[in-house]
């Protein structure tokens, strides 16, 4: 497949849609969370206001070059996943740059942003950044274990590592979704999704910023804006990944929005119900049911 400028236009348009949907979705989720807790919650347009505010702040401080580059890495991570992810089934133009690499590329590119962020926050010299990052990394490894098994199971099932092909194979009705054809992989994957979305009970990583310190505090102004922008994109794309893998992908933007919402909602739903884990608990947890589900998923398709 060759590169052309029309493609670039569609990509930018897709990015815009995803960004705005991500912002809206995060507002929705906060609203839902608040309502469950019998609060009124934020206004739905609050994320946009926050974003603009952040970008508009004039005073900006830096702790050094890596501190500066950290958000760039992070942002690249989010955008990169977007770039390598097919959005709408069968559409060449909405499949972004997924022709350059397969599922393995996406799996590994996730780390790009994480690494950059970790390094940037690390240079801030704030002890809690390091604590948060170490916890995040630790938990992330645990999340990846069941997720890997689920992905391997899918790859065996569909005999491919290409997301496009996996999605194609699920077309033709709900009964063809991996969720039905490979339930254990779906269980493993969706449980892993809980962790990767970073909501309670797996939000210890962000815990340090509740006592108002930690990376998001050191990062403010434009940096925070960049990080917020990225978060919006990344959340949608993570949901999109699970959608593509387990729930038949999306044939149009409406389906895309609905499915990503539901997948994202799943993690919020769990988060509202369960209290937070300590890090060793969450690591251990991922090595129990999710891992077993993943193992079963592979055994079934071996």
């Amino acid at each position, binding site marked *: 497949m060759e590169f052309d400028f029309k493609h670039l236009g569609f990509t930018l348009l897709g990015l815009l849609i995803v960004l705005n949907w991500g912002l809206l979705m995060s507002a929705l989720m906060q609203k839902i969370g608040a309502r469950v807790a019998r609060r009124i919650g934020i206004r739905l347009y609050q994320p946009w206001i926050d974003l603009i505010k952040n970008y508009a702040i004039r005073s900006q401080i830096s702790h050094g070059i890596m501190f500066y580059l950290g958000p760039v890495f992070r942002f690249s991570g989010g955008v990169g996943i977007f770039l390598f992810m097919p959005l709408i089934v069968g559409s060449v133009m909405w499949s972004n*740059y997924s022709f350059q690499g*397969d599922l393995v590329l996406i799996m590994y590119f996730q780390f790009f942003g994480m*690494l950059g962020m970790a390094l940037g926050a690390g240079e801030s*010299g704030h*002890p809690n950044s390091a604590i948060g*990052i170490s916890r995040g990394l630790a938990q992330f490894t645990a999340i990846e274990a069941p997720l890997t098994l689920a992905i391997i199971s899918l790859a065996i099932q569909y005999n491919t590592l290409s997301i496009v092909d996996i999605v194609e194979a699920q077309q033709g009705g709900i009964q063809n979704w991996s969720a039905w054809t490979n339930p254990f992989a779906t269980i493993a994957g969706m449980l892993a999704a809980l962790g990767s979305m970073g909501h309670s009970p797996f939000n210890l990583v962000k815990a340090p910023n509740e006592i108002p310190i930690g990376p998001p505090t050191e990062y403010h*102004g*434009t940096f925070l804006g960049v990080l917020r922008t990225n978060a919006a994109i990344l959340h949608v794309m993570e949901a999109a990944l699970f959608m593509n893998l387990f729930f038949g992908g999306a044939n149009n933007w409406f389906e895309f929005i609905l499915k990503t919402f539901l997948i994202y909602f799943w993690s919020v739903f769990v988060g509202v119900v369960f209290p937070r884990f300590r890090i060793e608990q969450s690591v251990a947890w991922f090595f129990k049911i999710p891992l077993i589900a993943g193992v079963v998923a592979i055994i079934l398709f071996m």
Partner: protein
Amino acid sequence: MVSPYFLLGIGLGLAFLLGLLGQKARKSSSILILVALFSFVGISFSWLWQFLQENASVTQFFSAGFKPPFSIALQVGLHEAVLTSMINVMGLFSFVSLWRNMKDGNEKLGPILLILFMGLNMLVLTRDIFNVFVFLEITAIALGGLILFDEKKHARSAGFKYLIASALISTIYLLGAVLIYFSNGSLYLDDVMALNNMSPMAIVAVFLLILSLVLELKPFPANGWALDVYQGANPAIGAIVSAAIGSTMLFLLYKLMGMAAFMQEFLIAVGLISFIASNLLALVQKNANRLLGYSSIGQIGLIISIIGLKDILGDQFLFVAFMILITHFLAKAGLFWLSAMLKSDELKAWSVFRKKSVLLVLFGIFIFALIGFPPFPSFYGKWTLIINLAETHNYYLIAAILIGSFLEAIYLFRWLGYAIKVDFTEYDEVKINWEKLIPVLTFGALLLASGLYMAHLMPGIEDITLWPLLFILAIYLLDFLPAYIKNTISIAALAYFSFIILPPYYEKDLLRFIFLGIFAIGGILTLIAGYAYKGKRRGFYPVALLMYAGLIVLIQAETTLSFFFGWEIMTAGSYFLIIRGKRSMEHGLSYMLFSIGGAYAILAGLGLTFAQTHNIDILSLASVTVHAKLIFLLLAVGFLTKTAALGLHIWLPGAHAEAESDVSPMVSAILLKAGVFGLFILMIAMGKNPEVASIAYILGWVGALTALVGNLAAAFQEDAKRLLAYSSIAQLGYILFALAMMSHLGWMTAMVYSLNHFMYKAILFLTIGAVVLRVGTHSMYKMGGLIQRMPLAFIAVLVGIIALSGVPPLSGFAGKWFFYNAVLEKGWYFQGAIVFFSGIVAFLYLFKLIYSVFLGQLKDNLRQVKDISIWFAIPIYVLILGIMFFSAKPEWVLQPLSDMLTQWYPNTSLSFDGLYINSNFGYWSGTGVMITIMIMFIVLLLWLWILSRKVVKVKQFNIVYSAEAPQRPETTHVSYNIFAGYYKALGWIVAPKISELWNKISDFVVSVAHFGRMIYTGNGQTYLVHILAFIVVTFLWFLN
């Protein structure tokens, strides 16, 4: 031919005449004795010359003009000529080494020594069984006399024990000799040997003769007296006992075994038991001379068993026996003479040789020769021995010999480690006198020369493999030059190699080209870092080049022998490199032990192979039919010790971490690939064999678990180099896993990992090493914030960890991508999942590494630190360029690799389509991804830059910190035990169970040794009881 009776005439005549000279003319009498010993050497050399150059035939000289059995015959043949030459050279140098002892009014010492060596000559030459008794007694009395002159503290009680033991033993011999006479009416050895069927009495007689000779050779356990002599007597006398008398007795045994073929099994058993037992007991020995005694007894035991193996070894017998004997002879004499220079008996006292590097080098040569490293004769001896034993299916003997050799290696290398590392200030300085130095030097040179000469005789060793060794010798002689000159020479040597020898391999054999490239170019790059070192860096260059020479020989090897040759040379060189580190003594030892264990496994495996194929071509492995599993396993285990697979890995962290800054990348990024290459060769040759599939499957699991444990352990390290070392273990685990898949994609993965690991591990180790040189500590929590002081280092580490972690767009991703495809194709899902998981774990330690060292708070004491040395930066950035190239244009490298691998795996799903690499499962465009990410990154960077041009750099402690402003960096740098929670959850996986297991094994062995040596009570009578019990037991065994 000169009549051997002149030896008698000269020796005795002079000894008798010297009484005339009296005490005044001591000097002239010493010179006369020296002349006599010289004439001995001359006579035996003249024989040697006649046999070697003029093809003289074996001649017997009869006494009194009658034929034997009515007179006594002295036989001069090639064997006798060789043995007498050895003995007489030894005699000459023994006399030289005792020169100063002659001064203290001990004017009788000279004649006694002369008579001793004359007696030894006669023992070798005589064909009369009773005459042997006479000269045995002369030897015993002369030796007793020598010991009596000894001023050492316990020499006399030791000598007394020796005398009573030898009195008992020689009486047994006397009985045997007399019975021989009564049974067949002749004392002439050739007569007895010609007997077709022996009478019972003759058999008993022969049994007694052989038994007493075996007893003279100190078999376990009837050898307490000998140990006491070694310990108690002057080491110069120990040298005579071990080298000269030992060799003579062995030859005598060999000679008399001509009539005792029925006792071969007995010799094998006794010899091997002595070999193993005395090496075992030596493990807990602290006294140098006694240790040498144990070692002597062990070596002699080995040769005894070889004499017993005469029929089994057939044509090769003489070669094997002589190779091992000559090594023992030269090395043991040399070691005893070295010991004679020291005042203290302690093993650790040998560290004073560090001040006289020549002596240290000699010590090293002797030790390596004893263990059987190339290029010394024992290497060829052991090789031939094992090969032939395998050929005759004597597998248990192989096991026994290798176990014994391994035990020997343990204490010898520990000792060498003491000499190289232990603090020597508390020991008296060594004073070198010429008369002590000359013998040691000569014997060391002879050892080297004989080894180099032997290489010519061996089929399968190309002469060219010896050139590097000579070059290294030359470098050693240049050791007085400053480091940068030697560095330049070394680089030039490797560069020469790279330009001349390397390019043809590109067409000929790409696999070898790649590994040679890694070794040669890696060698050059790591040596460039050596410019950062000031001073002379004594001893570094010879050993570094030794390692590279070994690696290169290893790759170039076409035969199993030269492969093993290269393997051992490489091991030796790397051992010295590793042990150069500050706290690396025990790590060097454990490295060596695992290496030797592995080498013996390889040796056994190659032996078994040869037994079937009768071919030393390295590819003959492919035609193995029986025992394929065992062979594969042995070889694999051998290679895995070098790649540090789980269970065999415990040496690596310490060894790599404690090595010098530019040595760590050598041994990690480069050296480990030797094991990978071995595995490649092994799998190429034997992979098609259906029997090995199950082992390959196990290896796959081992690889996966190694990766997991390695990475997890790395995450919990506080020492930067140790962290990287564990990381290497894990990376090699990936490679092992990938290789074990034995598929095209699997091997692609392995190749890509090998290349990548070479580059990024070299970058990381070089950088961290350079940082360590600047900051003076390995502990990461003592660093921090160095990004401000060392941007060059930071960028290098950043690139390194991105590449290592496999994050696109850098080249590490290629490995991950191939890995996934290979796993799916092969169907090793669970192992694959483990490896993948461990790959994620890698992020933990990579973050820890870069964060703890470069980010966080800069410590006060590091505020003035400079960036890494330019000499480190150059190779690092060259390697970064390499990574960048590989990342941007992976297909340029991958396509040839893939084509190469199709010769072994023609069916591949891999296809190259322009920038795209496709497999059955997925696709990937390295260039495309690189471009996409670069553009995106730059765009986003610009985006941020446009929005935030007025960024203000704040001070270090300007952070929001719970209403407090921190003052000290240490309190805000969270680095120590950063993954505590993770450790709580998964730490059990890396609990040091394996180290504990190895420790328990070694404790057990040591306690056995402790317990076993209690039989040596020190009481002469108990020793006699041992001897008598030995006689009774073997007699009973024999009567059955």
